[in-house]
Every structure is written in C-alpha cells, then in structure tokens.
C-alpha cells in the first residue's frame, strides 16, 4: 500500500501540519502572539520528558503541557503583566527544565534531536492519524468560531457589543495552539513549531486582501514549504524540519519583495 512508503507518510504528515498551523498562524500574527506560540511550543519539551518518564504517549504529554502553558499565559496576559519578559522567562525555563528532565531519565536512550528538530521520516501510520485528527480538530474549531474570532481580534469592545465574549474566543485559540504544538513536534520539533505558525502567515500577508484569503494563501504556502522542504532534505541529506522552515523563509522573502514592488 502507498502508506508503506516512508516518504509518502512524511509528505502527508507535513501537509497535515501545514493545514493546521497556517490558518491558526494567521491569528497568531494578527493578534501579535508570536512569542506566545514560542512559549507554548517550548513547554511541550517538558511534556515530552514527563511522558517518557511515565511511559505515556508523547503526544498526550506534549498536549497536556502545552495546554497548561497556553492557559497560564493566556490568563496572565489579561492582568497587566509585562508580557514579553514573562513569556521569555516561561518559554526558556520550560525548555530548559524539559531538557534537564529528559537527560535525568535513566534507562531510556532518547534521541533528543528528534524532539528538538522533529523526525518526519520516522512518522508512523498512527502518528499520521494523530496529526490529521489534530488538524481536523483545529480547522473545525477555527471554522466554527471564525466570525467571532475575527471580531474579537479586531476589537474586544466590538465583540462585547455584539454579545461575543473575547475571553472565550481567546480560549479557543489557546486550545487550538496546544493541539497544533502537540501534532507538529514529530514533524518540525519544538524549536521550530512557532516558525510553521508565523512564517507562512507572514508570507501570505502581501498577497491577500481579506483575512480569509490570507489564511488560505498561508495554508497553500505552508503546504508548498512542507513538500519542497521534504524534497530538498531528501536530495541534500539535510534535517527535514529545519529545511521545511528554510523553504518557508525563502517564500516569505519572495512575497515580501513582490509586495514591496507592488507598493
């Protein structure tokens, strides 16, 4: 069967992450939550360590830890903390604690690089099911709440006046973010998840005139980056996750130039 080919599985995994990360990434960009995505992704490392220590599913551990971090940050953000400092502290300490915890695990020989930079070529069928299940969940959430999310992003006061609670919408994004982080670990690793959120969305900005077009364009660009990165890493024998992000960055540079010329 076609899924027996590891390259096909890798391509499907990359597409799954692109489809989930790019539309959510548009909101991350619009709401200036880039650092927020970073903190959530880095916290996942601690989740991985805990999962390995208790022989649980790595996906569940990463999801739980991301959810805790995302909720914490989301709650604190409403209370007037100096957010960039706080996020910097939380993001990097979560990552450091995660790395230390993993190294303390006795008896388990773990390839740390696989979690830091992803291991897309080792994606199994059940990984694929998790990735596409997560992608479907995120897309479903975003589609269902789209209008309310967009109104809250534009202005919390406009949302309140229309009977929308922006704090609830923030929670939807928080949940979606944790899911994306958990499913993307295997593909790009904790260090580069935020790049998959932000770079395609930023690359789509100069090409789009409406929020919807930006989200769709970001998804197409992310898919192109995933497939192009996979191909290049295979040809050049480079790590796949970083190669995907490199291709995304080149696409960003290209659309930024096009946008600059048009202006």
């Amino acid at each position, binding site marked *: 069967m076609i899924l027996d080919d590891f390259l096909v599985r890798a391509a499907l995994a990359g597409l799954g992450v692109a489809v989930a990360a790019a539309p959510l990434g548009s909101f991350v960009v619009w709401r200036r939550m880039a650092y927020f995505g970073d903190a959530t992704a880095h916290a996942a490392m601690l989740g991985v360590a805990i999962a390995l220590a208790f022989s649980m599913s790595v996906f569940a551990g990463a999801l739980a830890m991301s959810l805790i971090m995302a909720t914490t940050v989301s709650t604190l953000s409403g209370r007037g903390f100096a957010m960039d400092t706080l996020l910097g502290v939380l993001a990097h300490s979560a990552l450091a604690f995660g790395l230390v915890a993993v190294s303390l695990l006795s008896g388990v020989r773990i390839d740390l690089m696989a979690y830091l930079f992803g291991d897309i070529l080792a994606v199994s069928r059940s990984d694929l099911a998790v990735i596409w299940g997560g992608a479907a969940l995120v897309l479903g959430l975003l589609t269902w709440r789209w209008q309310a999310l967009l109104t809250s992003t534009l202005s919390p006061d406009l949302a309140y*006046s229309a009977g929308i609670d922006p704090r609830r919408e923030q929670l939807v994004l928080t949940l979606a973010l944790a899911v994306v982080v958990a499913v993307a670990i295997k593909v790009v690793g904790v260090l580069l998840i935020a790049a998959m959120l932000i770079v395609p969305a930023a690359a789509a900005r100069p090409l789009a005139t409406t929020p919807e077009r930006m989200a769709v364009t970001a998804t197409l660009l992310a898919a192109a980056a995933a497939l192009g990165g996979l191909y290049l890493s295979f040809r050049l024998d480079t790590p796949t996750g970083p190669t995907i992000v490199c291709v995304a960055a080149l696409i960003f540079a290209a659309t930024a130039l096009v946008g600059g010329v048009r202006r």
Partner: protein
Amino acid sequence: MPLIETRGLTIGFGRSTVLHDVNMSLERGEIVTIVGPNGSGKSTLLRAIIGALRPTGGRIIRAPGLRIGYVPQKLHIDPTLPLTVTRFLGLPRRHPAADLRAALEQAGLPDLPDRQMADLSGGQFQRVLLARALLEKPDLLILDEATQGLDQPGSAAFYRRIEEVRQEMGCAVLMVSHELHVVMSASDRVICLNGHVCCEGRPEVVAQAEEYRAIFGTGTQGALALYRHDHDHGHDHDGHDHPHSHEAAE
C-alpha cells in the same frame, strides 16, 4: 420598560473609582448625550453598557434581546490584518450583498467596497464604522466621540446623519461628545457626568443648571470653549466631596 438602565453603577480600577453610584436610563428612540470633562468616566460608562467592563457595584439592566450598534472612539487595525470595507461590514455577522451595497450607499461610500480599511481617510473610516453598526439593525446605537478627528462641517454632517438614522430606524442613540454646541441642538436629553451624574435633563434645562455651569461655564454655545472649573460642590448622595479642577480646550 427602558432599553437600558443602570442602578447604583460603580466601576473602579484597582484602588481608584471612576464611576460612582450612576443611575440613568434610556428609552426607545431617544437621543441622549453624555458630556463631561476628561477623565469623568464617559467612555467607562459606555464600555460598561456594552458589557466590556464588569461593574464593581450596582447593576446594569438591559431590555431582553437588546441589539446594540457600537461605534468606538477609534479602531486600530493591525497592519498584518488585510481587511476590505466590505469584509469589515460583515463583522460580526455576514449580510446579504444587497444590504452591504445599501449600507455603503447610505454611508456615502458607494464606490469603495474593495478599498482596504487602512487606506480610508478619517471621515470615510468613521462613516464605515457607523454603517457597520447600522447593519446590525440596532435598538440602541452607541457612539463614543465618533466625530473625533473630523472637521466642523464633517462632524455637523455626521450628527445630522445620526438624527436621520434615528428617524428612519427608530433606534435610541447614546453618545459621548465634546462638542457642546452640537450636543445642545441634536439631543433630546443631556447627562452631565463627572464620576457621578451631576445633572441631567433637556439640553436647555441642563445648560441653565448650576452643576453644568460649574463644569462648562456659561458661554459654551460657541464652537470654541475653554473651560476651567473648580469642583468643590457636594452632592447629596454619600456627601462625598472631591475638590479638583480641570482644564480642557474644545
């Protein structure tokens, strides 16, 4: 039953109290303007009414099913968010294309449906904000200093438009304004706010009221008024005194 009513509304941030024991109500079809010096809690009151601020004391009672159209003081659109006029009008709810065309026509912007919101002039932006609020077919239209940044003829035209809207749609209007001369002619009722309701009533009555004059002086019918006042008058509720002075240029 009033559209909206506040009873003993108190709102504070941290240790400071911005609004104190505010009682007011709004009937269907009325145009009410809130006036008051800077920092008197005008915007805070509006934001509490739309539900964006939780009262620290007292209650806000909304008529069941009340639809509010809100025109904010200003709206910052992040440069990373692409947004055409048409798309903006479809928030929070999408509307049929014919309604959107009619709204743009009504707002005097029939040829700008695909223009980016960021590229509009101040006056065009304000008219789009108003059109969006009206598309919701509100029972209550709330405007927070909606004419800020418009020149005199522009803001006069804007308020004429508000009166037409009231006549066409029968909605009540609650607005905050600094432009006292406009307020005097365009409102059914004026509420003079300074942390609490100083006085309220028909514009000509309020203009004569001692509390109002204490804040705005007597010669404010003109377009330009510089007012300075010392607020040391006591009010009968709680007998709280608050000596302070303001200076503001209109």
